[in-house]
């Protein structure tokens, strides 16, 4: 680089106020490597931004044709979902109620294991209780998804309190979701009955609680919910 070109380069690197924009020591060779580095990183940034946009966009022909590549890339460390109560927020809550029967014949009746956690969650916003309550709700959600097919096979979906038919129940009982719910139910019932009363059987009921619609808002202060849809599962015999 000649002295005059160095001077020109130096002049070109000052703002109107005379502030130096780039280092004086920016030799030609380094300029090329820097330009290549900038180009490479900008390429990565553009590709990642495009992949994120395609991943988040609603279904469209471009998304459909690139889904294989985009999902394989995004699902590892960039998985995301920002629906956040949209397009419409959920208007009900799912719970798994249990009825625990001891060997001496005494029963707890239907109890909601998440109820004490909800109370704690309302009192203390910072703490693990709300998180545990959500995980109990997730067991109920997974279970109702798993029973959807079974209820369709039975031909009596949504029957209030109706047990699932035998074939559908057998299919459901083979799923991991059911195994998890069963373990949860037995654990919670053992806790509820205590060590002195050995557990004999557990019944599970999926309950969907619907709050009052706006037109019936006057009842909100009087009752906790407007309607409860129930699905009863077959009783589990517990061997000690």
């Amino acid at each position: 680089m000649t002295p005059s070109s160095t001077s020109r380069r130096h002049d070109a690197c000052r703002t109107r106020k005379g502030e130096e924009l780039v280092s004086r020591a920016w030799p030609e060779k380094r300029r090329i490597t820097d330009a290549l580095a900038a180009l490479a990183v900008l390429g990565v940034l553009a590709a990642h931004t495009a992949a994120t946009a395609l991943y988040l966009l609603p279904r469209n022909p471009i998304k459909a044709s690139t889904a294989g590549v985009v999902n394989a890339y995004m699902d590892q460390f960039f998985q995301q979902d920002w629906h956040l109560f949209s397009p419409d927020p959920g208007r009900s809550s799912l719970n798994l109620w249990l009825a625990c029967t001891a060997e001496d014949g005494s029963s707890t009746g239907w109890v909601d294991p998440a109820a004490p956690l909800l109370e704690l969650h309302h009192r203390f916003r910072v703490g693990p209780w709300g998180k545990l309550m959500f995980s109990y709700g997730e067991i109920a959600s997974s279970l109702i998804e798993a029973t959807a097919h079974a209820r369709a096979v039975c031909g009596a979906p949504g029957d209030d309190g109706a047990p699932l038919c035998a074939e559908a129940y057998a299919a459901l009982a083979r799923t991991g979701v059911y195994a998890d719910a069963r373990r949860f139910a037995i654990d919670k019932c053992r806790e509820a009955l205590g060590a002195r009363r050995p557990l004999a059987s557990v019944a599970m009921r999926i309950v969907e609680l619907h709050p009052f619609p706006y037109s019936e808002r006057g009842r909100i202060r009087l009752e906790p919910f407007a309607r409860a849809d129930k699905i009863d599962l077959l009783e589990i015999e517990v061997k000690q």
Partner: protein
Amino acid sequence: VSPLRARLLRGYDAFVHGLVRSATSPGTKAVQRAALFVWVAFNTLSYLPLHAHFWGARSYGGDGLFNPDNPFHWYSRVMMHPRVAPYYPLFIAVQLGAALLALLGIRLWTMTLLVHVTTVNLFNKAWMTLDGGHNLVSLMLTYMLFMNLPQSDGGAPVQTALSNAALVMMRLQVVAVYLTAGLCKVGGELWQSGMALFYVLQVDRYSHPAVRGLLADHAWMSVVATYATVAFQLAFPPLVWVRRARPWLLAAGVFFHLQIAFVMGLTTFGLAMIVAYACFLPEAWSQAILRAAQRWRRAVLAAPDPAP
């Protein structure tokens, strides 16, 4: 050289030099880093009293999450490996220790990597408890792996460029959250009618007993808050790039997310969004925050022992 060419050359030089040879907004990066590590530690500590229910023998929904044939699982789900699972307290200890050392600036990239690997494992195991806040934080931590690369302060061109690009990506990620959520809400019937928040706040797990009755008595509050939510989420993506609008927008966002955290009870999500705002702080503000933190640290360290 013609004036136009000189101008273009100057712009090009400034852009390339700014990207690969100088660490953009070092103060903003430091504040964002600190905020994220504090959130990670706060989140884990809030789970700690019931740790066995989330990560240990009393947890549910964790079976079959580890697939040995998937190479990524050896990084992000290794805690679910049957032989590793009993040692989950080690992941908690490493995560908290690494977050503390990273906050102190010790072995920054190594500590960021340790926080990343332990955090994604702890999140994946407790998947039933996750919300959008955990999702955003895990993404931000991934970007932070690039932001905190060694020699990214201008010493090495590729590392510096990746670090600067990571900050840009963090900002775009927050914008993507609002853009997606805002546009999805526009099509929702309840968001259009202004009754979305009335119904959300009737579901007991997203509400508080005091609020349920309040909205029943004053429906206008639901309408105002519903439309304000959609307006804020749609306004954020374009306006956050406008320097003058940014402080007002961030202040409104902090108020909005505190409401989500403490009224709706989605504490981790509300606080994670506020933490993510740090990447939009102007450099001067970030430097002022860092100076204040430094003064506070000195004052704490210099405090005399309490009298016996």
